[in-house]
């Protein structure tokens, strides 16, 4: 179902989308918590409010199927909080499904400006209704015809309590009096809502500004009438009442002449505690990522200019000696500090807590373990650890894959565990912490661990290594075999782990972020996988080197040391050259052969890089020194060039390529396994 949002509502729609995604993400966690503490009334209220806000927002935008779904779930939690209903684990599954459908709908709305057609959500609505019915005997029909029901109720009220005839103050307009009498339980914001729900021809348009003004002045209905306090006491509770009747809400979008009251309405319609939350979050502003990206780029340019100026000054100092230059130097040093601070400050803007991903795991683990019949206790540590948003965004899939792997392949079934003398409930730990300018993200389980021999056997079968290589291989090297392309195979992929993402894809994502993966395992005891990632991707320190008069830069984090190239230390071993460095023998390549460019006979230096657990020597012609650079993308056409991580612009305006040593060595890595 296509949704057409008028241009003046576009902003509201965008705000709604952001808010809705946030609410849904929180609800995921809340529902999990609910399973563990079903009596927590604060929690139940929170879920109820979340659904309520979602429904309200969707109502304005006439997103009928979202309203329907949220409405049902809201009703369910309304019953739960009134003690009329207790949620069973199976019912929770349905609620989760409902939540997923809502997420899908929001996603659809975001991507294609469509929402599911009514018949598409029929099945889930039925399921949700079955929960409702299990609570009390309110029938489905009655809920759909809520409007009627409500009218009946209110008219019934009038008859039952004729004493409620109100006396109004003199300055209250006639239309408003009627309204207040018709909806005695509503507060002013509620009345405004009722007006919007009315058919257009019956809508008393002149009353809207009056009510708005009253709300602005902080007046309440009791300020307009001369009645006893008791009745208005009921109001705060009523405020939390759900926005009733979704079918009528479809008329709202016919009312574009008054976007202001519509927009203001959901906030006034929520309960008091929610208002408090709103206040707290007003200290926070949302900024488009694009703007931050732009700022980051500009800061990047300043960093480059600073580097240029500093180089020029040191040249100038050599050429001329003068007081002014000294002063200039001091000024630039001070600017240098400011720029560094600025760089950090902007970087921090992009930092987000890893909670954003971690919070999805309780749900994933719950669903998976249920499906697999395994018992798991998920421990999450360091969820407030922050890292760059662009890294964070790319980590979700790899982490999900790793956790699935742990659950599926790592953990044993409860029976197996008991037999092995382990606690019946397995533990998966997800943790994150900072280490220097890196972030460490790890996942560990106390499952069966990795069987080294099995891995080696498989690698031999797949032709990844030879039996000889297998024999010489250390355990750690063997573990890293599972990261190689072509290792995970179809026959091993189960419904859960297999989503077309193998460990090799996980590894390549991590490498592309200039991170490393370390696998540690003990058979029978468990496996730990550690991801080490840089805090930011935009600015890195590199070594500038040259071959064949071409200049390249290598990220410093990959470099262990630099030594002079000495011919007598180079030996030929089989197909490979190697370099004797102190007591070690390292495989040696010229950068030319790795890059596939013409060989030069001009090697002066050897850069020793660390790839996985290995040191590899790379010979180059020239060294230009160290430089902080800003990575720029080379555009879509060249995004998949192996060995090139990106490019940067040098002081003279030329483009310098940034090498990705890990992927550059990918081709030779396979052959190298076990050679050492």
């Amino acid at each position, binding site marked *: 179902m296509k949704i057409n949002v008028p241009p003046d509502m576009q902003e509201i729609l965008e705000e709604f989308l952001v808010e809705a995604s946030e609410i849904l993400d929180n609800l995921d966690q809340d529902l999990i918590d609910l399973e563990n503490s079903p009596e927590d009334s604060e929690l139940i209220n929170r879920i109820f409010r979340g659904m309520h806000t979602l429904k309200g927002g969707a109502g304005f935008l006439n997103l009928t199927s979202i309203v329907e779904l949220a409405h049902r779930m809201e009703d369910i939690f309304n019953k739960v909080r009134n003690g009329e209903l207790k949620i069973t684990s199976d019912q929770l599954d349905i609620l989760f499904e409902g939540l997923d459908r809502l997420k899908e709908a929001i996603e659809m709305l975001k991507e294609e400006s469509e929402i599911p057609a009514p018949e598409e959500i029929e099945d889930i609505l039925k399921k949700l209704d079955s929960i409702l019915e299990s609570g009390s005997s309110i029938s489905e029909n009655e809920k759909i015809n809520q409007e009627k029901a409500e009218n009946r109720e209110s008219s019934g009220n009038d008859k039952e309590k004729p004493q409620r005839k109100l006396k109004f103050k003199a300055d209250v307009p006639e239309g408003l009096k009627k309204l207040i009498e018709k909806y005695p339980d509503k507060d002013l914001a509620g009345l405004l809502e009722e007006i919007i729900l009315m058919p257009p021809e019956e809508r008393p348009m002149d009353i809207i500004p009056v009510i708005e003004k009253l709300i602005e002045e902080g007046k309440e209905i009791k300020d307009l009438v001369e009645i006893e306090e008791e009745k208005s006491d009921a109001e705060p509770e009523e405020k939390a009442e759900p926005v009733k009747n979704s079918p009528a809400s479809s008329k709202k979008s016919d009312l574009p002449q008054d976007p202001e009251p519509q927009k203001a309405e959901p906030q006034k319609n929520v309960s008091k505690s929610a208002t408090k939350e709103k206040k707290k979050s007003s200290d926070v502003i949302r900024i488009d990522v694009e703007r931050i990206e732009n700022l980051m780029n500009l800061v990047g340019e300043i960093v480059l200019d600073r580097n240029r100026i500093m180089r020029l000054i040191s040249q100038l100092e050599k050429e001329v000696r003068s007081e002014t230059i000294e002063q200039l130097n001091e000024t630039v040093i001070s600017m240098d500090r400011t720029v560094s601070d600025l760089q950090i400050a902007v970087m921090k803007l992009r930092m987000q807590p890893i909670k954003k991903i971690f919070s999805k795991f309780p749900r994933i683990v719950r669903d998976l373990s249920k499906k697999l019949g395994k018992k798991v206790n998920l421990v999450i540590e360091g969820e407030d650890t922050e890292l760059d948003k662009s890294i964070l965004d790319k980590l979700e899939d790899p982490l999900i894959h790793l956790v699935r792997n742990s659950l599926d392949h790592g953990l044993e079934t409860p029976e197996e565990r008991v037999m092995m003398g382990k606690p019946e409930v397995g533990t998966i730990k997800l943790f994150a912490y900072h280490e220097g300018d890196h972030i460490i993200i790890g996942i560990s389980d106390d499952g069966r661990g990795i069987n080294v021999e099995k891995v080696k056997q498989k690698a031999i079968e797949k032709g990844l290594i030879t039996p000889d290589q297998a024999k010489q291989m250390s355990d750690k090297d063997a573990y890293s075999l599972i990261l190689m392309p072509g290792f995970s195979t179809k026959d091993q992929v189960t419904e859960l782990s297999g989503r077309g993402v193998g460990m090799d894809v996980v590894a390549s994502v991590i490498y592309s972020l200039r991170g490393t993966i370390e696998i540690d395992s003990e058979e029978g005891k468990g496996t730990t996988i550690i991801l080490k990632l840089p805090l930011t991707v935009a600015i890195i320190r590199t070594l500038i080197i040259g071959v064949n008069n071409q200049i390249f830069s290598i990220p410093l984090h990959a470099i262990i040391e630099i030594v002079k190239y000495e011919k007598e230390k180079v030996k030929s071993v089989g197909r490979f050259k190697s370099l004797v460095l102190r007591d070690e023998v390292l495989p040696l390549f010229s950068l030319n052969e790795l890059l596939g460019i013409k060989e030069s006979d001009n090697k002066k230096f050897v850069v020793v890089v660390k790839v996985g657990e290995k040191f590899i020597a790379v010979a180059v012609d020239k060294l230009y020194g160290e430089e902080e650079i800003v990575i720029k993308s080379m555009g879509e*056409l060249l995004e998949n060039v192996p060995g090139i991580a990106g490019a940067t612009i040098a002081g003279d305006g030329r483009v310098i390529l940034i090498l990705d040593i890990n992927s550059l060595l990918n081709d030779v890595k396979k052959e190298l396994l076990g050679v050492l």
Partner: protein
Amino acid sequence: MQIEDGKQKELEIEEIVGSAVSKEIQVIGFELGSELVGIPIEEIIEITTDKDITPVPKSPEFVLGVMNLRGKIVPVTTVKKKLGILEELPEDIYSKNKIIILDTEFGEVGIIVDEIIGSIKFYEDDILPEPTGTIGIEIKHIKGVVQLENDKLLIILNTKTIFSREES
């Protein structure tokens, strides 16, 4: 509903104009080898000369390298081979060059040309849809040809097929 009505009206007017006068098309003409080639001006971002091009190892063959376009990194390509024209790059191509920057599916992409002729205008009706086998260019990358007044044949390139995801 109102908006839709408005749109419909607009369309109608355009149709009337379209049927009366053929649309004028403006291309930037340039030479590739001995062929005169044109690309519609809407697809061209800018024309630039003598840029420093940094070769990119392991990139696709038609990518000559990357250049700095006001702080942005833009790939520079050679299209002759794709078009079936003999490719002979001079040695100083990495610093002496004429580049047309195009707006493609992959973002901004530069193509190396031999000589820039300039703007050429003609009417849509002048385009002959099916180039016969007489021109030496791969047909799938051609939108059509135009017989110019000076008897020259202008070949209009289809940049969409040259820079498409399937193609690379």
